[in-house]
């Protein structure tokens, strides 16, 4: 029972952490005005 309880708590904390990282990345992308094309250009090295 304790193990299950710990498992549930850990999974909640892990999910919260992942959500925090995801929201940080969204904030960064939005703040730096990086769009899909820019990400694509970064990966391909393509320049107009």
């Amino acid at each position, binding site marked *: 029972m304790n193990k299950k309880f710990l498992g549930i708590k850990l999974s909640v904390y892990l*999910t*919260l952490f992942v*959500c*925090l990282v*995801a*929201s*940080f990345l*969204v*904030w*960064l992308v939005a*703040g*730096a*005005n*990086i769009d899909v094309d*820019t*990400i*694509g*250009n*970064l*990966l*391909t*090295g*393509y*320049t107009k």
Partner: protein
Amino acid sequence: MNFILSIDGGVFSSVWSSIINTFSRFEIRDAIDIVLLALVFFVAFSVIKGKKAGTIILGIAICVAIYFLSFIFELRALHSVFSVIIESGAIVLVVIFQPEIREALEKIGKGSLDGIKGIGEREKGISNYATMIDSICYAVHMMSLENTGALIVIERNTKLLGSFTDYILIDSLVNEKLIRNLFVNKSPLHDGALLISEGRIAAAKCILPLTEKKELGDYGTRHKAALGVSEVSDAITIVVSEETGKIAITYDCEIIHDVTIEQLKTYLYEKLAKQEVKDKT
């Protein structure tokens, strides 16, 4: 293909300077912004976790991956098709996730409305739940002894009636004799589920969505329907097996087999009555 992943100095440096610039303007407001967005993500994840919407999210992720890969590998035809899909994605998402969006909005609305309800109403609510749980447990106990098959759905935050394809409206107080009568083999309403909503018997003969999980191979349609409804809502469903008289509960995509009547009563009190107290204080 050797140009792939060779990062262009110009693009990289301009993006990097944008990121540095964003960091240099970091304020406490941005931290609050990030935390609030993380909470929105967490609530959204909690709503779709384990439900059918979860597999749809996976499908969307695959579409996005194909979109990026087609861009990187310059597969123009594939990229143009997936561009259209991604661009019209917002409308498609609203249509696909309509039940989940509704559930999330109901949760938000319920949270704010409960705060302004009076104390008298709270006590009345708790008392109603206790009476309802006793009636349901007694009826389930009797049907279990008589090997009468039953499927009872107790609605919580997600409103279900509108999502059923077929049902007969009843709108009556919860009464153990009425519940038993509805599930008698020869009764015209015994097929399908009984829906209990807001402390009342809302409808009978409800057709529920069946689960697609394989783990219920030996069980019948009642168990599959009970698990199916738990995948699309936060309802608690009680199943009485017609063959064995055994009681099972489904909630949040999980099924608990061979439940005794005492366990059922405790479970319902935990999930309904105590939740009611917690919600309203």
